[in-house]
């Protein structure tokens, strides 16, 4: 990480996550911060997944979270490689538990002839 200042609200939250191979694997839905009153706050993890939505958009968020399965993935801040226009991670999505929806659906899509042309 560079020592450049990052505006968490504008440059981190709601941004696209890319894994170490450049695969799109979710968004930064929430941040986990640590530090008591009077201490400096520190970002310790990125939270991603439908489970975070129920806190973000009232009843619609709760419905969306339920439809999405309600899971949340915690990506430790150490696994963040770069914060630019996308947030790049140091590991592959499957190692972090991200992008599971695509992985689960893939075998079914592959059954349709021509899917891997």
């Amino acid at each position: 990480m560079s020592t450049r200042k990052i505006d968490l609200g504008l440059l981190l939250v709601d941004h696209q996550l890319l894994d170490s191979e450049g695969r799109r694997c979710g968004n930064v839905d929430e941040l986990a911060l640590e530090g008591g009153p009077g201490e400096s706050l520190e970002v310790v993890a990125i939270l991603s997944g439908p489970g975070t939505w129920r806190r973000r958009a009232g009843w619609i968020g709760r419905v969306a979270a339920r439809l999405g399965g309600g899971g949340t993935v915690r990506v430790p801040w150490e696994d963040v490689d770069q914060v630019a226009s996308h947030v790049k991670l140091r590991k592959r999505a499957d190692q972090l538990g991200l992008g599971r929806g695509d992985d689960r659906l893939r075998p079914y899509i592959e059954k349709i002839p021509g899917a891997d042309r």
Partner: protein
Amino acid sequence: MKIFNIALGILAAIGGFVDIGDLVFNVSAGATFGYQLLWVVVIGVVGIIVYSEMCGRVAAVSGKAVFDAVRERLGFRTSLAALISAQVVNLMTLAAEIGGVAICLQLLSGLPYRWLILLAGIALGVIVWVTSFDWIERIFGYGGLCLLVFAVAAVKLHPTWSAVAHGFVPHMETESPLLYAYFAIGLLGAAMTPYEVYFYSSGGVEEQWGPKDLGLNKANAMIGYGLGGFLSFALMIVGGSLFLEKGIQPEFLGSITLGAEVPLGQIGLLLALVGILFAVGGASIDTLFAGAYNLAQYLGWEWGRYRHPSGAPRFTLTWLVLLVLGLGAVMTGVDPVQLTEYAVIFSAVALPLTYVPILLVANDRAYMREYANGRLANVFGLVYLVVIMIVAVTAIPLMILTNVGQN
């Protein structure tokens, strides 16, 4: 060779500019008000040039497509509202375009409409599944160029050219100013349809545009959409010089082809039908993908039309589902032309929700560096922000007051 490819791309963009919304609104505006509303088309075309150039530049420099920008600038909650409205409008447009394809097939073959809807839907699905995107763009773009027959028709109908020229000067000679305003809003909405920029910006990201492609982006936007606007003029002139004089309101997509058949005979009719078929078919593929892009970008899924369908499974499933939903909607027997009117008016309402975030990102030097909006782009951007806000606020009241353009 590169110039040649760019020229081919632009040619495809011209053919791809006109969709069922432009056909319906331009011809009916001509049939109702003659050439009076030509100036509104100019405003709409310049608007889509400004908006799509900005979206293309954001895509090239920051690698963000429209709904990436919407999500990060508006946050989860507000952008969810933007997403839902965009998806509803997209689905209505998709259904209308599929219906349009079926109508063209019916006029060409004489087979029953319901079966042709099914055939159109299946054909679109198969084409998208088996054909590479470069070819899809070319086939539908070049096919859509047959619409140029309306430009020939417009000349052959010998309009009073001084009256046509007068149409480019804003003025209003009518007993029904509300109807005039309704058509003006509809023309703007049809020219600035948001699905075009969803599709365009996502394409830029997929083709991995960088700052070196900004010239191409500008040329695509200005020449492609500019010449596409030329087709819109032709459609309105045909509406004004044929339909208005004969007192015909083009309530059916098929009656629009009269505009080419009357001055040019059978060959005109055939070219018009083929042109509409490809233009509307291409637009239905664009809307189909626009819907899948938006959802995938909003949720951070893998997406891409150049990927193997199995490379972006949820994206692929999304467009398959949208196709089935769109097909189901047309199968209910709803009239595609009426559906188009509603879709265009509702898209005008939803326009600020995608336009504002793009304007913000295009001004953000943190990503855009020296490619952020310059003064000219911002002057245009702000003027159009006002235009879009007025359109968004007045669209539904005008639709209700004019009974969807009926009085």
